[in-house]
């Protein structure tokens, strides 16, 4: 049922990177996505390199510069329940808690959550689709209820992660180790659109792995939230989600990050919405304009037009909740 592969479990990062250098190698962390992909024949494997024995990849700690480091092997449950994360990055704790199911969160890792393969049912199923080297994207004329409304071209997957949009909104950075050494990539540049590369969803090159994520401190007084809408209450990916981070004075927006999940092949940052919000008071008109901006440019397929409505709905709803919990901006006296 599974392909024939060798299995190694190195105890150091250096060994792991060496092992990953050979072609046909795949990283095993939580395994929740890997095993499903192998069993369903989404891709094959000649070697599985388990990084579960590398202790330095685990855990959450704060650094002297105020940043927080999350090891790639840290489980989603640990991220969701960490007081350090909850106090400083509520958005990330909420996103981690909204992912998958309790069992999967206990097993799945933050690194794996960022690197998981798309859930498109043609990609996962027994269809020789474009992303698997075939010549058709079945979603274009097929069952595309769950596919993207932004950023699609030739292939219309959505990025399945809940933590990815949260990390993009928090200006997090991925620390990557590979055959050529370390590099650091902002999460905002980590993911790859199909127009750029059909075969992969992120910038990781062969043999590279994420070692940890670093989060810069949020400006004092910032607020953040993650809102996820799904077809059932648990164990479901986002139909659409909104990762939101704001810095307010009264109700005036001094800074914002607006990143959507479930609507594009990558976490979809809406700079247009951020522009609308910047320097404006949160009021019904701003909310409406923000929602308009967030949906502008959407290109729904035959069955997923509801996602445009949904994005509008969650942007308005999330901003309204923030508006209502903040006092009106004190009028400036001259």
């Amino acid at each position, binding site marked *: 049922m599974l392909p024939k592969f060798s299995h190694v479990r190195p105890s150091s990062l250096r060994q792991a990177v060496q092992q990953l250098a050979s072609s046909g190698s795949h990283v095993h962390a939580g395994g929740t996505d890997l095993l499903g992909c192998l069993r369903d024949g989404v891709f094959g494997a000649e070697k599985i390199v388990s990084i579960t024995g590398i202790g330095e990849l685990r855990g959450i700690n704060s650094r002297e510069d105020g940043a927080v480091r999350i090891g790639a092997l840290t489980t989603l449950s640990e991220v969701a329940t960490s007081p350090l994360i909850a106090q400083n990055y509520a958005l990330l704790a909420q996103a981690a808690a909204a992912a998958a199911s309790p069992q999967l969160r206990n097993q799945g890792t933050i690194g794996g959550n960022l690197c998981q393969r798309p859930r498109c049912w043609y990609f996962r199923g*027994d269809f020789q689709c474009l992303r698997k080297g075939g010549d058709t994207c*079945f979603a274009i004329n*097929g069952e595309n209820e769950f596919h993207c409304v932004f950023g699609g071209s030739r292939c219309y997957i959505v990025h399945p992660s809940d933590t990815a949009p949260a990390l993009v909104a928090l200006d997090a950075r991925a620390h990557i180790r590979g055959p050529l050494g370390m590099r650091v990539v902002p999460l905002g540049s980590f993911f790859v659109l199909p127009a750029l590369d059909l075969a992969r969803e992120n910038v990781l090159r062969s043999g590279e792995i994420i070692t940890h994520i670093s989060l810069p401190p949020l400006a004092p007084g910032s607020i953040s939230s993650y809102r996820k809408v799904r077809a*059932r209450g648990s164990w479901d990916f986002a139909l659409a989600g909104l990762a939101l981070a704001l810095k307010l004075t009264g109700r005036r927006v001094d800074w914002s990050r607006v990143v959507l999940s479930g609507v594009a092949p990558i976490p979809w940052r809406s700079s247009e919405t951020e522009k609308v919000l910047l320097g404006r008071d949160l009021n019904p008109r701003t909310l409406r304009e923000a929602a308009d901006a967030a949906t502008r440019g959407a290109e729904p397929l035959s069955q997923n037009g509801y996602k445009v409505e949904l994005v509008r709905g969650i942007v308005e709803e999330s901003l309204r909740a923030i508006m209502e919990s903040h006092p009106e901006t004190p009028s400036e006296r001259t």
Partner: protein
Amino acid sequence: MKQTEISSERNSSTDAQNLEPWTNPTVVGKPLPRVDGYERVSGSAIYPADLILPDMLHAAILRCPHPHAIVKNLNTEAARKSPGVRAIVSSADPEGKLVIPYPWWVPEGPPVLLFDQHCRYQGEEVAALAADTPYQAYDALRLMKVEYEELSHLLHAQDALKPGQPLLHNTGNLVRRPDTYQRGDLAKGFGEADVLVEETYETSCEIHATVETHVAVARWEGEQLTVWVPTQAIYEEQKSLAATLRLPVSSVRVISQYVGGSFGCKAELSKHTLIAALLARKTRRPVKLALSREESFLCAGNRPPNVMCLKAGAKKDGSLTALEFTNLGAVGAYADWADAAGWAAGSYACPNIRTQDTEVYINAGKARAFRGPGAAQSAWALEQMIDMLADKIGMDPVEFRLKNVPATHPRTGEPYTSIELRECLLKGAEAFGWTKARVARASSSDPVKRGVGVASCRWITEGGPPTTVIVTLFPDGSATLNMAAADQGTGTKTIMAMVVAEELGIPLQKIHVEHADTGTTQYGKSGGGSHSVMVYAPAVRAAAADVKRQLLEIAAGELKRPAIELSLKDGKIVPVREPGQPKNLSELKDLTRREQIAGIGHPPPEPKGRLIASFGAQFAEVEVNVHTGEIRVIRLLACHDSGRVMNPLTHESQIFGGMVMGIGFALTEQRVLDDHQTGRMVNANWHDYKIPTAKDVPFDQLCLTIDPKDAECNSAGAKGVGEIGTVPTAPAIANAVYHATGIRVTQAPISPMQMLALLAARREAR
């Protein structure tokens, strides 16, 4: 299981005993935990999938990946040489032409060949093999080379009878002559109506999604075949296997002691069971064949999709004047039932009715009985239609239903042995706080809208013979209950042990249940149609009463008193006049000499000229977020008349389980086929096919009951409860969604995707 509205056979049994239902039972009716609860929860219960026999092989099935194709060529050479492979069966073997019999409730259909070169659904069996390990078996399957000629496929019932569509069978795409029922004068009824409503409703194909997939273990000893298979119907499977393999019935033994969920999809002989038997015969070794989750989504049954067109009329006072209900259902690739309309004719007192059920073939996995088959789809349409009528005349939906509760069965005029539908509606509405909840609405600016809805239901159940049960009592006061009934999770074992305990006055712990094994039990009806309690409780009671009669006769002889002056209490003989002088059973020399007393019981025939049915009403409260389309069921309340509640715990499990299924039917579950391209199912897995999770089920669930004290239905006073609990849930939720939003969602499931699209359409229309 397919249920006929009207019982055609009412066998009489000569040795039936005329026992009246208990008046003050001490065990029956108590909330006792399951007799096999520990085994089920601890994992020590041995399900067929757990079974490991010496030298056992593992089989796997090669399935057609296309919805419609011809197998032009099959090359199994490489697979045969693959490590561990011991045997292969395919259409090249004479066995490949074996024909699987239809179950008794599907009277006819095109022949189902074991390996048909004309594959009519994705997942149809093409070949199978047995290997030393399951992995070797699946690896070897990949080495089989098949050349398919793909044919154009038919996926929608609406297209099936149009010219130019692919024909699934020589006989065409129509399963059977459309079934029409009519009473009164429809035109006259519509003419008398003050209001008319017309609407088309659709349900989605729902998969049983049992936690345990289908599995069979087969073993031959000479010409004797033993099969372990989770099934509701051991004798049905035995008969079908014997017929297919041309064996004497007595040469086939079917054992089904634990079943991990069935809901109707494990009640007939499946191809995989036959394949396991064939491979075991070929290899002379035991063979296990367990279907994968994906396989069970594709070809282990489903609730068929229906398209239902309704027109109904009512007077301003709320009385129904006319109902026209036309249903088109797709059974899948082989014969089964996809009816819905006929059910509606028996629901309410409406003088003028016409119903028509048309069933067609499509290129998809075949339907099977599914908890309230037909009735659940019918209720989705009818109960929303009733809501629309009530809305149109400005009458409360509960009141409207009360107005139309039938006094007798509307189709035959036969009275029910008991009918508490009115009480179910009234008591349920009161406990739910219906009137208040109906008025209270959220402020118009709040995007989260609240609403409440109601639906009612009815389910006809037939008990009666033939069934034979044996109860054996030992001198130490312990007893064995021997019966054919399987327990597919419903609690049948527990309830029947309670009947023995009630009748013999011995503790539950001293009763062993030997069941669901054609080799050790006598013929008994299968567990389906919600009738287990109605068939088996009277039979078990009769058997226990037979034991008791014999025991008291023995005691009478020894104690030199008339048997009538003796009673059986707490496992002791108690003289009625001297209750202080009980006698242990072990003190009865004649009993010790006999070693045991065996009593035989049969269910008495059903009452003549009466129908037995369960009734209920369910109430739902929902929240709909009109910005996101999210629907949350806030609370559910059920009020049911299922006759006597044998055990409140298992009864609640049935109702709550039914309601959870109803939530799935209403909100999340749907087979998705790749419509315009490959025709394949795209969501044949746990994640994409969404059954409700704990978070989709409200904490606030309540199950109330009304005991009609039905002395006529049977000697237990109990009616069926297995299926009815799921029938009204989905329409109650749909009605609540309408109450919350003003949007009538006619197509199941009401996903956030659909809700958002409907909300947007309304906004644009305004």
